[in-house]
């Protein structure tokens, strides 16, 4: 579904992505990990053209995302993006945040958009917050709404850029639970994260990046137990965390 073909990116003279070549199949949950500055956030942002690339191609559903005849807005409507800092629209209520895209971009009727919004909010456990303003929600709640907002566009692919890194530790689990449920339903996901426990339990494959290069691409069992690359080994030693608790959502 998503293919990186020899992707190169520079920030001025700084080579931040070096010949990334890999692909993600439908239904896979792909976790990208690596030390800070490895380029993993940059990589995920190139998919929806939030960042431009200078070399290579990125293919989504077989088509080049940067092709002259491709419409960037339609591309972004088909790929859900969840940000580290949630980025809910501060001037709109939760309900309006969820309905804006479907109405203005997908052309849904207000009723259809509202029904969908209610279903999605129930799914992330926040049905009672439908009329709240983002400023009155906790970080974990905001991120769950952000996930619902992305899902409202009914995308076949969901991208997560360090979704829990900006959350206080006690709220990380509620967001990971939502992501795990999404994975169990078969959603194709690409996740940049430091949550190794989550990766070990939920990922179909793990990519390890360092200094702009994709150094390892392996199923979690193999990656966590027998990392091939020396740098991957060192990274894992620094970062391992226990698996997420199987707690019920209480909100």
């Amino acid at each position, binding site marked *: 579904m998503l293919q990186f073909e020899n992707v190169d990116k520079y920030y001025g003279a700084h080579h931040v992505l070096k010949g990334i070549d890999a692909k993600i199949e439908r239904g896979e949950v792909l976790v990208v990990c690596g030390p800070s500055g490895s380029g993993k956030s940059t990589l995920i942002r190139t998919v929806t053209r*939030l960042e431009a690339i200078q070399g290579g191609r990125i293919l989504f559903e077989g088509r080049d995302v940067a092709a002259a005849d491709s419409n960037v807005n339609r591309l972004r*409507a088909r790929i859900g993006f969840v*940000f580290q800092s949630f*980025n809910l629209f501060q001037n*709109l209520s939760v309900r309006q945040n969820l309905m804006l*895209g479907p109405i203005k*971009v997908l052309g849904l009727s207000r009723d259809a958009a509202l029904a969908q919004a209610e279903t999605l909010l129930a799914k992330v456990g926040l049905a009672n917050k439908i009329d709240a303003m983002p400023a009155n929600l906790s970080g974990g709640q905001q991120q769950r709404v952000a996930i619902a907002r992305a899902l409202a*566009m009914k995308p076949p692919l969901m991208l997560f850029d360090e979704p829990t890194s900006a959350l206080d530790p006690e709220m990380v689990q509620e967001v990971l639970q939502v992501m795990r449920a999404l994975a169990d339903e078969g959603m194709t996901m690409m996740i940049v994260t430091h949550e190794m426990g989550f990766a070990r339990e939920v990922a179909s494959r793990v990519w390890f990046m360092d200094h702009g290069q994709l150094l390892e691409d392996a199923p979690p069992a193999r990656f966590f137990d027998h990392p091939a690359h020396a740098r991957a080994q060192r990274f894992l030693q620094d970062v391992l965390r226990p698996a997420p608790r199987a707690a019920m959502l209480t909100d």
Partner: protein
Amino acid sequence: MFDILHDHLALFLVGAWPHGPLGGVANTLVLAALGLVASFPLAIAVGMAQVSPWRWLRTGADAWTRLVRGIPLLLIIFWAYFAVPLLVGAEVSAFTTAVCAIIVYESAFLAQIVRAGLESLPRGQMESARSIGLSWLQSMRHVQLPQALANMLPSIVNQSVSIIKATSLAYVIGVPELTYSAAQVNTITLTKPLQTFLLLAAFYFVLCFTLSRFAGWMERRIARRRLGLA
């Protein structure tokens, strides 16, 4: 000073009305309000252009702003006096000319406020709006501008103070506003120019000072509401 006020209050407040066109404070306020409202669309357009992702638009808006901010308002008024009848193809009143000049003037200054308002928003708002597939224009309309306009309200009220002061220049082309009224009163009373013109200053002072205080109050109210206290 108060006897001048007493004798000529009507002239100061409404000019020759109802026996002539509206003048005095009333006309000053009409001129200012009209100028503010009419310049808004252009100011928003220029402000948006300055933060748009298209370089030619940014450069054009920047050049326009520098041009308008770089020449005296009086010169803009003279330009309007010359150009507006030509562009419209008919005679225009001095009042209309003054409004046009204010629109041009504010399209640069008000635009700076719009731009500052847009730039003060966190970048993530635009990014997440684009990420669900909204176009740049849609994102502006539904996410950026509503938030920016709320932030900008105190600055806009402060800018209104500036506009009210600017209306005094319309006196030079014969618009019957407050300064013009004072000049008329001066020619009537003749021997007390200091009192007359200090009275004029007092009128403006009351208007502008009140507005500035209101802007300050607004700012405090918005800050409190943002923290969830109001």
